């Protein structure tokens, strides 16, 4: 299967703290891969390196066939438009309404789009996450789950081929977390996206991911499907599943 993300021998250190140490993996098209690990092991750093929010020290990252570390700013923006990134807290622009949040990046990157088409695009994206009624609300008026949904809608507006979810269910109640997990699956089916899910919410991982990787001390400790890893007696793995 065609890989959409290829990471080879990735290394990232902050001063003397080597957070990522020789990380290599592929994310194939249509795959939902979860990366598990304790807090502070470098899961989010890995996700940010992939979209080059953080520059790695060594290694190679290819996204949709492009060498991310060799791209100039304009080429990088073009690739980034094909990648959605859902931040932990949603990262909605708090001075703008939901509609403006969705319109903002389209206006800034596709200036030729007319107002009616833009409105349709925004309404379609919000309808897909079931939040059309919140179109005129400010982020401060939304619950945590709604913010995550709006963040997904904001990402969907570019119809990305890959979505990186950075702890999509953290801080949500179990019911809302379940809804977000279902939304991840719905989005994957409807838009045929490949997803990289950074999480330590095992319910979310079980529901959404078809391949799991566990990261410890900056490297992948093990990988496999939920069923494979669930049966492991290794104490390092067992703790996640029981």
């Amino acid at each position, binding site marked *: 299967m065609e890989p959409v993300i290829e990471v080879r021998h990735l290394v990232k250190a902050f001063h003397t703290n080597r957070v990522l140490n020789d990380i290599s993996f592929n994310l194939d098209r249509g795959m939902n891969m979860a990366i598990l690990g304790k807090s502070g092991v470098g899961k989010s750093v890995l996700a940010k390196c992939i*979209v080059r929010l953080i520059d790695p020290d060594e290694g190679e990252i290819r996204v949709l066939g492009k060498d991310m570390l060799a791209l100039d700013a304009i080429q990088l923006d073009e690739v980034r438009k094909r*990648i959605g*990134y859902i931040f932990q807290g949603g*990262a909605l622009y708090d001075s703008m309404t939901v509609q403006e949040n969705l319109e*903002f*990046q389209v206006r*800034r990157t596709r200036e030729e789009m007319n107002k009616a088409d833009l409105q349709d695009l925004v309404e379609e994206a919000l309808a897909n996450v079931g939040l059309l009624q919140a179109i005129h609300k400010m982020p401060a008026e939304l619950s945590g789950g709604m913010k995550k949904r709006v963040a997904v809608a904001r990402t969907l507006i570019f119809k990305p081929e890959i979505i990186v979810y950075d702890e999509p269910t953290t801080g949500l109640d179990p019911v809302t977390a379940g809804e977000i997990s279902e939304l991840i699956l719905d989005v994957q089916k409807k838009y045929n996206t490949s997803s990289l899910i950074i999480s330590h919410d095992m319910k979310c991982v079980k529901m959404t991911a078809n391949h799991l990787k566990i990261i410890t001390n900056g490297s992948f400790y093990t990988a496999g499907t939920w069923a494979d890893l669930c049966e492991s007696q290794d104490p390092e793995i067992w703790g996640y599943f029981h």
Partner: protein
Amino acid sequence: MDNQKTNESLNNFFSEIGNLVLFTRNMGQQFFSAPRELVKQGYFIGVKTLPLVVITAFIMGMVLTLQSRPVLMDFGAGALLPGMVSVSFIREIGPVITALLCAGKISSGIGAELGAMKVTEQLDAMEVSGTKPLNFVVATRVIATTFLVPILAFIADAIGLLGSYLSINMYEPMSFVLFISQAFDSLRQPLKPSFSASSLV
């Protein structure tokens, strides 16, 4: 070991300088690329700061006149009051209080806003969606501040002189035309080089 530490410190220092130069260059390239945000920031920086500048300048103008008047009257130099107030207000006090107020109000506001945006990953969200936060968030605020602070200083000067005029009229009637004429006559006198140097400081 010491050499290595020194090299590392020098390396960090020059990296930081390099980053600042690149940051300034990128910002310069992206001036005026977000006109709607520029207008919005102009409103927040200019209009929202105006009441504070007006009240402060008015009070400063009045107080300066009230405090200077008795001394000048003692020396029989009351007629010099408008000129003295206008020179000190327009050349020094007006721009200084405007700059201090703007530094306090606008800078702390911008700092808090950008800090919150960084912490809540809003800047990263812009970056990752292909929207450069630099031109939207930083350049607009820098341009708005650069253009509006001198305008605020000009308004502060005018309001300060108005305060001074009202203050003089509390003691003796004086026509506004005479006040303005005396005020601007003093300003026409050329600056000594030493005065210009002190203004720069």
